[in-house]
């Protein structure tokens, strides 16, 4: 049955505009418009006559113009072009001897323009990109952010104490105080020795010929001033400290500043110290600028300032100058709130070195005992066993090195601390991975590496004639933790629900019949894609949870306060990064699954909409919280595997699996936030807060 055509009044009443008609007559309309006007003119007398009038007008103008101009001899120039040749010769003479550069540029230009256009474009774009890369490279040093700069400097500081045999970090600083009335400018030379092997510390201040030695960090100085004490003989302990400050009163002020701002007085000019202070302040404004040192070396200045009001001795702003060549801090300016005025303290490094204990002069450490006792007596002069703190530091460095190359996420690598050092052993899948792991671990003191590639391990087993299945199993950290997963051949527990969900989304209500088969295929493909993504994300979160649990188990009993600043920083960085990774995977997993699961929940009237996981008793330590988080993630992973891979679920909770999975996302979110906050609070310097806030 043919449809009735509805008359289009708009079409029937259409006439070309004057401009359109003129353009049509003048042959200036586009093909489609031209045909439209032409069709119209065939039917419309009025417009046709108008068009003819336009044609006649054009003809009359052209006729008029022709009368005057057609015969060229009727309109000739006064001088009849007689001067042109002379002028042209003059122009040519200007170009008779082109400059060498212009000739070259003309040749290059002609060659470039003779290239086929697409190649010319590609060449041009490549040239622009190359120039941009060159410019970026030129400005590379200035492109670091404050966090990145500090991070690099901390890495450099951690790496520098890895050199075996050179355990003493020596720093000679010039401390200058700049202040207005009533204080006068003051300068003092301050030498510091830090023995990383035993934790011993020593310092010496000198003003003119007077110099005093002390072993107590400035930050531990008693609050009351002791300016009234007179110079006496060199002694140890607090007496020595007071004499030190008597030699250089400026150090007394620095001690108060360090204490108020919770700065480690043993390392006044160090990236870790700066980072410790930097993370305690909120809000803060930061800026990185390029500068040049007096010896011509390039350097970057990171300036961190905060808002008031300020208590006396609070740092208002700190500028740390870091040499770009080796990311070593060379000077620092602390702007401090005094009781009545603002004071600037400038710490400039004049000497720095890594020294052997034996090379130190008498009196530096000779009068104090090492803080940590050696684990075993030395057997030979060459074989020196590490101190306990050194061993822990080495172990954390090794863990951090493996963490950086993501070897902590389920790879069969084991770290074993023994009395004589840290042993890292395990299997790498490929020789390349083995090289990567060994490179990451090299130069860490007291660490021996014994990593084999799979091929090497197999060859070794064949040679030995024994099959070491049990050994290889024991190396895999994660496999032993998981209960066996049974994958059923039948359909998923929520297969029907998923199919319904995707079919509804894929089909519009008015879709024609015959599409159902195609929709079913599409829905199946979508279910497969969703399931694989869900399983993959859950696995990612679980891998990080295992790594976090390992840290919690190993370092649960260790008081983070007793760790060296660098070790504490590394441990916190690992915890922080694992928590962030878990949160990222959970957020992605949640955004992927929540719409689907909520639609399934809406159909399941029996299940509780507000299903929640069992409440767990709150724990106060970070390790306990990490273990709780691990358990929740493992449960979430099992539920995901049950719902989207058909794996068996040990608990008889299949009926509420959807609601429980949704609740587990909430719980992971809560627990990870809690752990992050706890790390922030428990750390004496609240080191995580700033970073967590930044990275959110």
């Amino acid at each position: 049955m043919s449809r009735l055509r509805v008359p289009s009044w708009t079409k029937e009443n259409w006439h070309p505009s004057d401009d359109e008609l003129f353009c049509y007559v003048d042959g200036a309309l586009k093909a489609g418009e031209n045909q439209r006007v032409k069709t119209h003119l065939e039917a419309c007398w009025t417009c046709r006559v108008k068009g003819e009038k336009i044609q006649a007008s054009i003809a009359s103008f052209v006729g008029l113009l022709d009368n005057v101009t057609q015969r060229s001899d009727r309109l000739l120039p006064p001088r009849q072009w007689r001067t042109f040749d002379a002028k042209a010769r003059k122009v040519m003479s200007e170009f008779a001897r082109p400059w060498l550069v212009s000739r070259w540029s003309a040749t290059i230009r002609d060659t470039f323009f003779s290239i086929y256009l697409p190649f010319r474009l590609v060449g041009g774009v490549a040239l622009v990109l190359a120039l941009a890369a060159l410019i970026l490279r030129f400005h590379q040093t200035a492109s670091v952010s404050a966090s990145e700069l500090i991070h690099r400097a901390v890495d450099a500081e951690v790496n520098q104490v890895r050199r075996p045999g050179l355990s003493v970090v020596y720093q000679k600083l010039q401390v200058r105080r700049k202040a207005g009335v009533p204080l006068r400018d003051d300068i003092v030379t301050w030498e510091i020795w830090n023995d990383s092997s035993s934790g011993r510390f020593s310092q010496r201040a000198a003003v003119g010929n007077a110099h005093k030695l002390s072993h107590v960090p400035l930050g531990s100085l008693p609050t009351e001033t002791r300016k009234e004490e007179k110079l006496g003989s060199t002694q140890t302990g607090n007496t020595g400290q007071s004499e030190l400050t008597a030699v250089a009163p400026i150090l007394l002020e620095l001690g108060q500043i360090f204490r108020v701002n919770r700065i480690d007085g043993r390392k006044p000019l160090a990236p870790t110290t700066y980072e410790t202070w930097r993370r305690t302040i909120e809000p803060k404004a930061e800026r990185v600028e390029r500068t040049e040192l007096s010896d011509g070396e390039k350097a970057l200045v990171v300036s961190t300032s905060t808002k008031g009001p300020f208590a006396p001795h609070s740092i208002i702003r700190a500028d740390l100058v870091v040499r770009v060549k080796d990311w070593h801090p060379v000077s620092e300016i602390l702007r401090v709130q005094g009781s009545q005025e603002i004071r600037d303290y400038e710490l400039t490094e004049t000497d720095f070195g890594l020294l052997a204990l034996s090379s130190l002069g008498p009196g530096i450490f000779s009068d104090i005992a090492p803080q940590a006792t050696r684990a075993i007596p030395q057997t030979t002069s060459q074989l020196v066993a590490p101190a306990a703190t050194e061993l822990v530091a080495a172990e954390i460095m090794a863990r951090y090195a493996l963490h950086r190359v993501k070897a902590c996420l389920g790879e069969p690598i084991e770290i074993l601390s023994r009395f004589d050092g840290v042993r890292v052993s395990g299997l790498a899948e490929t020789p390349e991975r083995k090289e990567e792991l060994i490179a990451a671990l090299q130069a860490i003191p007291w660490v021996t590496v014994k990593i084999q590639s799979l091929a090497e391990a197999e060859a070794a087993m064949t040679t030995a004639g024994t099959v070491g299945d049990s050994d290889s199993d024991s190396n895999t950290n994660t496999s032993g933790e998981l209960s066996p997963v049974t994958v059923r051949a039948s359909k998923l527990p929520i297969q029907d629900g998923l199919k319904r969900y995707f079919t509804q989304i894929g089909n519009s209500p008015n879709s024609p019949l015959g599409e159902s088969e195609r929709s079913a295929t599409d829905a199946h493909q979508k279910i497969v894609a969703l399931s694989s993504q869900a399983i993959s994300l859950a696995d990612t979160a679980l891998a990080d949870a295992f790594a976090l649990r390992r840290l919690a188990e190993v370092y649960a009993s260790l008081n983070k306060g007793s760790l060296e600043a660098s070790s504490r920083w590394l441990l916190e960085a690992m915890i922080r990064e694992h928590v962030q990774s878990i949160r990222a995977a959970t957020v992605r997993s949640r955004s992927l699954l929540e719409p689907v699961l909520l639609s399934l929940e809406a159909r399941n009237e029996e299940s509780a909409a507000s299903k929640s996981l069992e409440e767990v008793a709150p724990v106060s330590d970070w390790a306990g919280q990490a273990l709780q988080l691990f358990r929740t993630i493992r449960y979430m992973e099992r539920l995901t595997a049950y719902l989207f891979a058909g794996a068996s679920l040990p608990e008889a909770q299949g009926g509420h699996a959807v609601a429980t999975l949704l609740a587990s996302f909430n719980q992971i979110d809560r627990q990870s936030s809690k752990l992050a906050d706890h790390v922030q609070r428990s750390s004496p310097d609240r080191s995580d807060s700033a970073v967590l806030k930044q990275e959110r």
Partner: protein
Amino acid sequence: MDTENCLESKLLGVRREIVTTDQRVTELFETMRDSVYRYVVLVFGNPSEAEEITQEAFLRLLRHLQSGRIVDHVRPWIFRVAHNLAVDLQKGRKYESNLDADGWEECCQTREDPEPNPEMRILQQESFKLLEAALAQLSCQQRQCLILRAQGFRYEEIAKILRITSSNVAQSLRRGIKKVAELNHE
């Protein structure tokens, strides 16, 4: 027009051979100078200046090509340069100059008439007067558009020469033609 296009393509073909550029420009000049001059003199008046402007436009083409640069479409390029030169000259004078009576007289007197015929001369003078009257009715832009269109330029080319839009060109042409027609009816 065909000759000009042919020349243009020849010029494009040899533009990288710098040695012969001046010859080619001279050849182009001889072919195109009258149409350029006619445009300038009819639109802006003053035959002496129109001659200088026309020559200068071709000399600039010569310099342009000699310095190794490229001109893709020579004819619109020359008209555009000539137009800009004339506009700049007018800006210096601060007023618009039609071809005044003296100018027309100069045009008429400087022409060469191989066959002096009093009757033809009267007819041509009549034509000049009619054209003068018609052009005087038009605005500057209408005059420019009409004469360029009469020189065979397409709307887009006119728009580029005058730095206006194609729709402006169409509008100017329609109104200009309408005015000319009204004058004819009168």
